[in-house]
Each structure stands twice: as C-alpha cells, then as structure tokens.
C-alpha cells in the first residue's frame, strides 16, 4: 500500500500489534495459572507413589500407570469401607438426575405462570422466591432435618432429591420467568382463542421455545447439585452419600501413607460429570444467557 502522508515517528499500527500481543500474553498466563492445578492433578494421578515421592510435582510421569484410577474407582477406603468412589458416584447420579429434571420442570411451569398468567400477588410470590435464592444454606439445615424426619425420608436419596428440588426452584423459576416475560402476551391470547388450555399452551407453544433456557437451567442445576457437599453431608447416612462426601472421606481417611495419586484420580472422577455437561451443552449455555426468545 502506498501512503502519501509522511509516516509518524512511531507507527501506530505497530503499537496496536504490540498491545495485542501483550494482551494475549497476559491472557495465556492466566489460563496457564488456572490450568496448572488440573495439569498437576492429571499427571500425579498417572504416577506411582514411588515416582511421586522421588520426582518433582510438575514433572510428566515417567511410567504411566492407571493403577491409582482403578483404586479410586473401586477399592479406595473411606473409613471402614473399601469400595472406592463407584457406589457413591452412582448415588450422585441417582440423586442429581431426578433433582435436576424435577426442579427444572417446576421452574418452567412457575416461570410460565408468573410471566404469562399474571394473577394477583404474582409479583410478591416471585420476589419471595428470589429471596429464597439467597438464603444461606446453613440457616435451613436444622429445620430441613426436622422436615425430612417428619416426612420419613431422612438419610435417603429421595430425601436429598427433595432438598435439592426445593432449593433449586428459586433459581429455575427466575431463569424461566425472565425468559418467558420476553414472549408477547398475544401468543397466549391467540392460543386461548384457538381453544388451548393452560397446560396445552405450555407444552405446545412454550416448551418448544425453551431449549436455550432449558440448557442454562440444566447446566446450572446439575453443577449445583452434583457439587453440593453441605446438604450431602448433612442429610445422608452411610450408603447414601453423594460422591463429594465420599471423596472427602477418602482423602481424609488416615490409614497409612497419603496416596496422592489415588486422591487426584478420585477428585477428577468426582469433577468429571460437570465438566462433561458443560462441554456438551456449553454452547447452549452462552446462547441461552443472551437469547431473546421470539421473533415475529
């Protein structure tokens, strides 16, 4: 390109490029900083105990072994039991899947009612639900324990599901309500004239529109419930504990030497499902958070 104007002393374009590289460098540094622990976890989990003791923390494994993973999954000891994470992992699945499904569904119906079927006191109820989102969990531990006992589900997986559903509803309602208020009210009116009732309109018109916000809610709820420790440790008993509680027990059990490789493998196993869900549905998450719902 031929430029007629004389070049300034410092080329502005060169300055911009330098700035951009600086930015990239800083971002890369941060990414490295965040990924470092994961790197250490993975490499450590693939080493033998001997290698861990002799080698450096950040060194790659000399001899890759999956022994620690096997142990973590099926034979690591927590307290007196030595069954690994496996049974607790399935506990977590058995409690997270229904809790996510039910709380999401209830949130969708709630949001639909509050946004589209305005009734006296709808705003008050919505405010109270929002308030419920921000009550610290510790506050409700005792009353909830009493309630579960009263219902006869204390220490069981259905009991934990119940707790998570109740505590999820505030957020799931918020998500769906905010999505559904952007849908013009004339849509419901048209469907009413067409003869559709409350649930028919919900299933045939609102549900098909809801994929993006559904994804957001499911990811959010899955992460919350899977990662929960406090409710898990408070409302379960031997045999019904979720994987987070079992992980804690394995890491903290003091029989002999600290098996760092097993601990790392167990931690990765416990964290894997949330990573997986985000990897599969993450693009909907971004899309759903920014989505306007309907055009035309």
């Amino acid at each position, binding site marked *: 390109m031929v430029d007629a104007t004389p070049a300034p002393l410092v080329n502005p374009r060169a300055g911009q490029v330098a700035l951009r590289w600086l930015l990239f460098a800083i971002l890369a540094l941060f990414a490295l900083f965040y990924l470092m622990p994961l790197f250490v976890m993975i490499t450590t989990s693939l080493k033998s105990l001997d290698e861990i003791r002799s080698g450096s923390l950040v060194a790659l494994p000399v001899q890759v072994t999956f022994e620690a993973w096997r142990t973590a999954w099926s034979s690591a000891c927590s307290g007196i039991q030595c069954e690994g994470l496996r049974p607790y992992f399935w506990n977590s699945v058995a409690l997270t899947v229904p809790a996510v499904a039910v709380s999401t569904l209830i949130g969708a119906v709630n949001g639909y009612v509050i946004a589209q079927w305005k009734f006296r006191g709808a705003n008050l109820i919505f405010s109270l639900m929002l308030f419920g989102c921000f009550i610290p969990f510790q506050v409700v531990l005792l009353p909830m324990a009493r309630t579960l006992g009263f219902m006869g589900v204390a220490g069981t997986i259905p009991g934990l599901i119940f707790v998570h559903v109740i505590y999820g509803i505030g957020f799931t309602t918020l998500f769906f309500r905010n999505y559904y208020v952007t849908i*013009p009210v*004339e*849509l419901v*009116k*048209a*469907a*009413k*004239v*067409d*003869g*559709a009732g409350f649930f*028919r309109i919900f299933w*045939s*018109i609102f549900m*098909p*529109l809801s994929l993006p916000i559904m994804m957001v809610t499911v990811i959010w709820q899955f992460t919350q419930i899977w990662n929960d420790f406090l409710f898990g440790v408070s409302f379960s008993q031997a045999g019904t504990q979720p994987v987070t509680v079992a992980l804690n027990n394995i890491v903290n059990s003091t029989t002999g030497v600290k098996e760092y490789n097993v601990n790392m493998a167990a931690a990765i196993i416990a964290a894997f499902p949330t990573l997986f869900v985000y990897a599969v549905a993450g693009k909907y998450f971004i899309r759903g958070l920014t989505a306007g719902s*309907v*055009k*035309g």
Partner: protein
Amino acid sequence: MEAMLEIRNLDKSYGATEILKDINVSAEPGGFLVLVGPSGCGKSTLLNCIAGLESISGGSIHIGGRDMTHVSPKDRNIAMVFQSYALYPTMSVARNITFGMKVRGVDRATRASKLQDVARQLQIEQLLDRRPSQLSGGQRQRVAMGRALVRDPQLFLFDEPLSNLDAKLRVEMRLEIKKLHHDLGATMVYVTHDQIEAMTLATKIVVLKDGVVQQIGSPAEIYRRPANLFVADFMGSPAMNLIPARTSRESGGTRIEIERTGGAPVVLIDTRNGDLPEEVILGLRPEDIAEAGFRAGEEVQEVKCLIDMVEPAGADTFVVSRLAGRQVTARLHSETTAQPGSTLDLAFDLGKVSYFAQDTGERLN
C-alpha cells in the same frame, strides 16, 4: 334482524382506572363494525372483552343471541387476528393454521382439507412448510388471517391487523379484507386508529375516545354529520374546518359572522338552521368550500378570501386561507389559478354545514 353482537352497558376497569365506560354497541349479521379512535382509547381492551380474553366489570355481551358474558374465549365461536399476528413461532404455517382444530379434536382428514381450502383462498399454499420467522410481514398477516378463517366462526375480531404493514401493502390488504368480508358474508369487528381504514371498510363505525363512545353510525353519517367536535376533527383527511363564528337572527335566516384580521368579517346567511346560540363553531369539510363558479346550489355563498398557501395534490389543489385565526382549507380543482398572497372568490356550501356548541363541543344542527 337479531344482532350478531350485542354489547350492553359494558364497563371495564383495571383497579381504580376506568378504561371503558358504559359501552352500548351492536353488530348486525354480515356487518362490518369498525371501532376507531386514537391510540390508548380502549379499542383493544374492548375487543379483548368481546373475545373473553379480559373479564368485564359490568354489563353484558351477547354473541349470536347467546349471553357470552361469562363464557371462555374458546366457547364464544369467535376467531381473532392480532396486531402482532401472534403466530406460534416454533410451528410451521400449516401447523399454525391447524392448531386450533387439533386442540378441538378435529380429525386429520378434515384438518388437511380445510387447510388446503384456506391456503388456496389466501394464496399461501407454497408457504405451508415455513416457519413464521421465514415469512415477510405481508405473508405473516395472511397466515394470521388463515388461522382465523379456518375456524369459520360466527364473529371475526381484528385488532389493527394492517398497522405493521407498509403503506402500499396496507392498501392492498385492506381491499382484500373487504373482498373477504363480501365473499364470506361473515360478521366482523375491526379495530383501527386509522380513520381511512374505518371509512373504507365499515358498514358501521363506532368512534371511541377515552373509553367513551362518541358516535355510532354509517361511514356517511359519521362523515357528514359528526356528533361532536372530536369526531369532526378525527374523521376525514384533511380534517374538517372548524371556525369560531357569531350568529344573530335576521329576516330570512341566521346571520353568521366570522372575524378575520385585516379585513371585514365574512358574513354568510344560513336560511335553514335557526335557533343557534350566539357563539358557535362552524364546521365545513374542505370539499364543501370550492372555487366560485364551480359549486352550484341554493346554499352556496361566495366570499372573497386572501389565499395564504396553495398545495397541489395531483387530482385536487388545496388552498389555505385564515379566518377567525384558524387555517381554513378549501379543496379546489387542479387547474385553479389561485396564487398565494392574492385573493380568490371561494364558494361556501352551507347546505353541508355543521354547527357545534363552543362550550360542550356537541353538534347543534
């Protein structure tokens, strides 16, 4: 003939705010009833009340002779077209149109054949598989119409169905709706804020303002004999000239005097209308003021006027003069020689005049 739609003493409030006050309206079978009024006057609310989408605070609504006041929308035997069209966004055009029948349990074969009929009628056969987001405004409008047509209801309700279209398409669709009304012979209630739409479509017009009915009548009645200043001003374009005047009795009729700055008052003699108060507002449509010599009739009187402005508009030329401090528009033929700043003899046709009370705005003659 029994009315297809009969609204008696309808009131509607949201909390303490009264939106509609003592509405009494009826529509004859096969009639085209237009509710017209400025934005925010309660037209959509009234239509929603008729549809049963809003509950009413008082009065009754009969459709097809049945009391429907407390009947749910689906059982009122109505179909409605919304301003935003309200097409179901995730359904194809075909499913949009057949959704109502499906909900009502109409069998598949009937649904398919009715869909084909309506699609042919509206010329949207090639669009049936598309989503609403893949349609142009005019096409969405047609689909919305199709959804209403397929119901074959006792009463069609339209809420400003053309207001989202561009001007050219609006005129086209207006004609098409008129033709549809003619072909179907159905009863229609149509809401608009556009007085031209009201005039061209209606067999009966209801003019609303602030939730109160101002006048009910045929387009010609509303146009020729507006019931008050609001209707006179709202209906017709350019608007009716509304000129303050003084009256006095005289042998042979009523003497009307209109002030003007920089000249003698305009004096007209009305031989038909007596008993007017001293101060009135005189209303004359622009087409009832013509160039002298181009209008004949007993009541035509000529006055020399100073022309302020000349606006050629193709078929006609509008000229503006100032009387009693108001701009007065006259509609002349296009070959007029009128020049701004010169004087011209204008013919006022008092056979078409309206008088309004200066205080209440009500019609006097």
